[in-house]
């Protein structure tokens, strides 16, 4: 009996708001005023945003030139696997009717290239690319090692399939004088990619660092000879390489190839006139060349 009287108080549930389900609360109610005001606010916002975006999109100019068909003979050449290292060039003229102001970017655009395949996207070695261990190729199947078991650098399907067409844009001041449009090969990548995700083993002598490794089967040159003109743009830090190594979400994608160096004739951008570009053709699939100026962003 003593037990029950002791229980008496202890068994009475607490009178807290939580336990009695009386927590102060706001009840959500779909009242007409509230819903309609939210509706109209959202509508106004979206309309404004939309018109701003449309206006800004109009202000950007873009030219897209598909050179796969023009370079059909090169494509044919490539189809035979044995000819993969034969050089093939073609040249395409085009006319820019209006001048392109501000920053001008040059992209290459691939159509139907599935960089998002599961096995493709995983076929890379971040440990290798960060320069820690150039021989870490475990994740790179099916391009881990060459036939004689030498580890491939950079290993993996992504690196192997790197876009390596060279595109040179020329400006025809008149019918006889043709000058090369200066393109910057820097600033194409994310800061974190260039300074964190991709690191060369050391800066001294890349060729030494990569000794004991071999180049990917599709590559004409090893990783330390990607940019013969600029020695710093070599190895894992080559900007084209970094751009390529960030796989695209969809089979049709464009990647930044170069920025216009605004000097001499091109201080304001690309003037109107006749241009042509010369391509060293390597890729198999549908490729476009894309020039765009992004003056305002949006």
């Amino acid at each position: 009996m003593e037990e029950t009287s002791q229980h008496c108080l202890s068994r009475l549930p607490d009178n807290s708001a939580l336990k009695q389900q009386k927590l102060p609360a706001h009840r959500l109610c779909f009242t007409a005023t509230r819903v309609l005001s939210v509706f109209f606010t959202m509508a106004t916002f979206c309309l404004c945003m939309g018109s701003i975006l449309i206006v800004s999109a109009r202000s950007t100019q873009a030219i897209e030139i598909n050179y796969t068909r023009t370079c059909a003979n090169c494509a044919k050449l490539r189809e035979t696997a044995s000819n993969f290292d034969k050089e093939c060039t073609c040249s395409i003229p085009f006319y820019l009717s209006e001048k392109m102001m501000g920053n001008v970017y040059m992209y290459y655009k691939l159509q139907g290239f599935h960089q998002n395949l599961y096995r493709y996207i995983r076929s890379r070695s971040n440990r290798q690319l960060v320069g820690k261990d150039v021989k870490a190729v475990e994740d790179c199947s099916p391009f881990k090692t060459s036939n004689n078991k030498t580890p491939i650098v950079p290993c993996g399907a992504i690196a192997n399939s790197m876009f390596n067409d060279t595109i040179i844009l020329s400006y025809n001041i008149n019918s006889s004088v043709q000058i090369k449009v200066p393109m910057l090969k820097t600033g194409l990548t994310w800061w974190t990619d260039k300074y964190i995700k991709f690191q060369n083993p050391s800066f001294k002598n890349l060729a030494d660092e990569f000794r004991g490794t071999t180049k990917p089967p599709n590559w004409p040159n090893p990783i330390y000879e990607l940019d013969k003109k600029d020695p710093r743009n070599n190895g894992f830090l080559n900007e084209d390489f970094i751009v390529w190594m960030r796989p695209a979400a969809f089979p049709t994608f464009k990647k930044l190839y170069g920025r216009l160096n605004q000097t001499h004739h091109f201080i304001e951008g690309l003037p109107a006139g006749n241009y042509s570009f010369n391509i060293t053709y390597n890729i198999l699939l549908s490729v476009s060349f894309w020039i765009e100026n992004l003056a305002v962003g949006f």
Partner: protein
Amino acid sequence: MSNALPQTNTMLFLFQDNRIHTSKYNILTFLPINLFEQFQRVANAYFLCLLILQLIPEISSLTWFTTIVPLVLVITMTAVKDATDDFFRHKSDNQVNNRQSEVLIDSKLQNEKWMNVKVGDIIKLENNQFVAADLLLLSSSEPHGLCYVETAELDGETNLKVRQALSVTSELGADISRLARFDGPDTKLMQNSGKTKFKRTSIDRLMNTLVLWIFGFLICLGIILAIGNSIWESQIGDQFRTFLFWNEGEKSSVFSGFLTFWSYIIILNTVVPISLYVSVEVIRLGHSYFINWDRKMYYSRKATPAEARTTTLNEELGQIEYIFSDKTGTLTQNIMTFKRCSINGKIYGEVHDDLGQKMEVTQEKEPVNFSVKSQVGREFQFFDHSLLESIELGDPKVHEFLRLLTLCHTVMSEENSAGELIYQVQSPDEGALVTAARNFGFIFKSRTPETITIEELGTPVTYQLLAILDFNNTRKRMSVIVRNPEGQIKLYSKGADTILFEKLHPSNEDLLSLTSDHLSEFAGEGLRTLAIAYRDLDDKYFKEWHKMLEDANVATEERDERIAGLYEEIERDLMLLGATAVEDKLQEGVIETVTSLSLANIKIWVLTGDKQETAINIGYACNMLTDDMNDVFVIAGNTAIEVREELRKAKENLFGQNSNFSNGHVVGEKKQQLELDSVVEETVTGDYALIINGHSLAHALESDVKNDLLELACMCKTVVCCRVTPLQKAQVVELVKKYRNAVTLAIGDGANDVSMIKSAHIGVGISGQEGLQAVLASDYSFAQFRYLQRLLLVHGRWSYFRMCKFLCYFFYKNFAFTLVHFWFGFFCGFSAQTVYDQWFITLFNIVYTSLPVLAMGIFDQDVSDQNSMDCPQLYRPGQLNLLFNKRRFFICVLHGIYTSFVLFFIPYGAFYNVAGEDGQHISDYQSFAVTMATSLVIVVSVQIALDTSYWTFINHVFIWGSIAIYFSILFAMHSNGIFGIFPNQFPFVGNARHSLTQKCIWLVILLTTVASVMPVVAFRFLKVDLYPTLSDQIRQWQKAQKKAKPLRSRRTRTRRSSSRRSGYAFAHQEGYGELITSGKNMRAKIPPPTSELEKTHYNSTSWIENLCKKTTDTVSSISQDKTVKL
């Protein structure tokens, strides 16, 4: 018994020790056993299979941690829960095992722990001690080696049961000493605590079906994608072969498709998230705690809070359609109070006003003041002063009446430490009578086997007890034969009027008819009656009789028959003294509860072992039967044919009348009547009641009549089954459960309700007077019937509402989350590439989105508890299963599919041609993944914000917190530091920083959110505005009436407090008296309704007729000992 003794020595090694184990694990066995049990669950086993699939490198499309992290988390949570449960079981085991008892060791009494008691030990037990094991009684301090045992923990009965020691052993010692017979797990209690049937809710079953459907859906998606993969590989994939060789041994597109199928099964498995089952359990646990914590279901007088003993059935409480209620102890208090008596043709206990009209007993009226008497029991109130006056005047009949009450019973008396007299009673009726007599000055003091000492108006008198002619079910009476100090021998008898009236001396005829009238009056008020008679015995006659009795007692053949014959022989020519009327008090608030539950369209069936008249009276008292009813069908046939005929007639009657009002209100259509205008509907179909007794029920439950009975019973508003056995109770419940497909609830308090409680979907035990058995078998328990209203209308309704909302949201969320992979499949060559980061997939369900939906599932309220109580119609959607059914599920799934579509294709459109502000590309896979993940988290958070209708601070913390946690984890996992350590595991370095600083990404997220949420908002808004449900209306009303609301609740509160202030016993009496009088007055004023059946029912209650009808009640054989309370 005697056989058991010699065996004990030889078989000692076979017995276990007396330690009780209810716990499942110990420290060593916990891990293996618990894991084994957990992986027996289908869901866990399924996820284990998935995990194994993921370990196969060819088809693994997700890294192993995406499954193992949630799985480990889930299993750990369950294990922790199991461990705590078991810890408490260990604790209670230890408590029991360490109880002390005195054991004879080395011929000395020593204190020994229970667990060390061995078979063959001799134990000394004292009064009010717990019994350690199954024992054999050797001897006791009471004469004749008697001892009284309470078996509440065994069968739930608190009545004392008499056990007698073998005469050989009884002389051995003065104290109760007993021999242990069975120990530990072999004891009756442990043997009987069989595993309770595992109950599942209908939502559970629906959920399982849906999960199966989802698996089917999953396999369909897998097949579509696998075919897609095969086609893609053969058409387009060829061009890729130079970049991506086929692995060894998988050089065909069909085989690639096959592997892709499994890969997609792994990826898409998140449509059935592992956290679903755990979350459901957590929510139910939360709801159970709310029930335990509810102060409004706490009964302060007994210090009993409501208890949810099963934590898995809560939402089913919101779907109850049928309640099966026991009467005694559930609807009534099982407290008997002496209310009236008729002595020598005069009624005492009625209160008359000045005009001689009977009036209601109210608290204003002064009760008889007993304070002058020394031994007054508390809580006794009697309102008629005339009885006291008669006693003081010395009316011999009155004195004899009270003397009889004091002498003729089986009550045991004892004095407690304070010197107060305490009565140990076998039946509460008897206790009420003895206590009443005591209050009128005839005090039963003590008894020995040969004498009874009483105090008659202050003078102690000792009567010699010559014989007790005990009660049994066929006799329905008991008598004592005593010799008073003057030497006269008297037989005092009390018993059922039907029986006793047959035994009267012919000279009693006038008094008999008068008393009969009084008895029917008492019975009409729902009082339990006993007739009282005595007989003067001749000394010589008695001696002869006594000798014959002794002969009969030692006879070896036909002993019982001979004794019964002798009893019959002496119990005749009785002189009628009068009758007593004892009130079987209704529980507090029963009437309100019944009214409100029937407004909620819950049908209440009363299943009782009591006799028909009592049951009907209680039915009237509780408002279940009213005089407004169109018809009350009484089925009381004794043969199958009679029963069938009666049922057929009743049905004809019902449908005949019905067709006048509305043609074709067939029961089957009930489900489709979704409108909440139940009131209208009921007046159309009319109110009917069905009363059936156990004997007829036995016939009616036979296969071919069963459907008739069910159809009839379900058309009736009230069904009362009387004289039913515990088994029949269960059969009735099973019948409704099986053929009506309705959710049933059984509520009861005694051991006889256990079968019914176990077979109903939900069993509720009243933790009240008759012990523990019902509570132990029940799923919920509380102290008062009236709490049922709150349990169902508030807790049940909320639980159902919350669970449905939770499930809707959960399925929506996971479809939205998972199906983007399907859409993405068409763009990634069906290569089973996931859209999101692997870590996001791992954490999405268990970290980013689990808490807000749990908070909603636990705390959400559409309307306040007060409103749910005030408006029982709100309960309808649960009964009709409107909030979560297959249709609802499809809507949720479509919503999820729509959201996934928007989630995928808006970013797709945006990323198709996008470039960053600095010209750098942002349409890469990783940015896309981050954009999608962020949009998804925001969309589902906004959605849960819209779904949550009751925003407490917890919801705020959880919703905002989840979003904050998402972003912090995102930035942490995309940080330089973690990449430096695990470059392969966290390849998304810098992504969050880059993507989320782009304005266009935020615009994409915004657009996605708006596009996926706005249609839902619009739809809901229109629905609430154009087709508001009742709860919507109440919510709006609630908002509008915020100021008026406190006024309202105050009013109800004052009404309640006034009834509480009226005091203890009176709180019940007011409602009860009001009802009785209203019912009775109505019957008196309004001429009996047109129905013929009711008339016959009245006639049948007439005692004269009963008297003429000499048939003994055959049904009595099925009713238990408890029929003492006639």
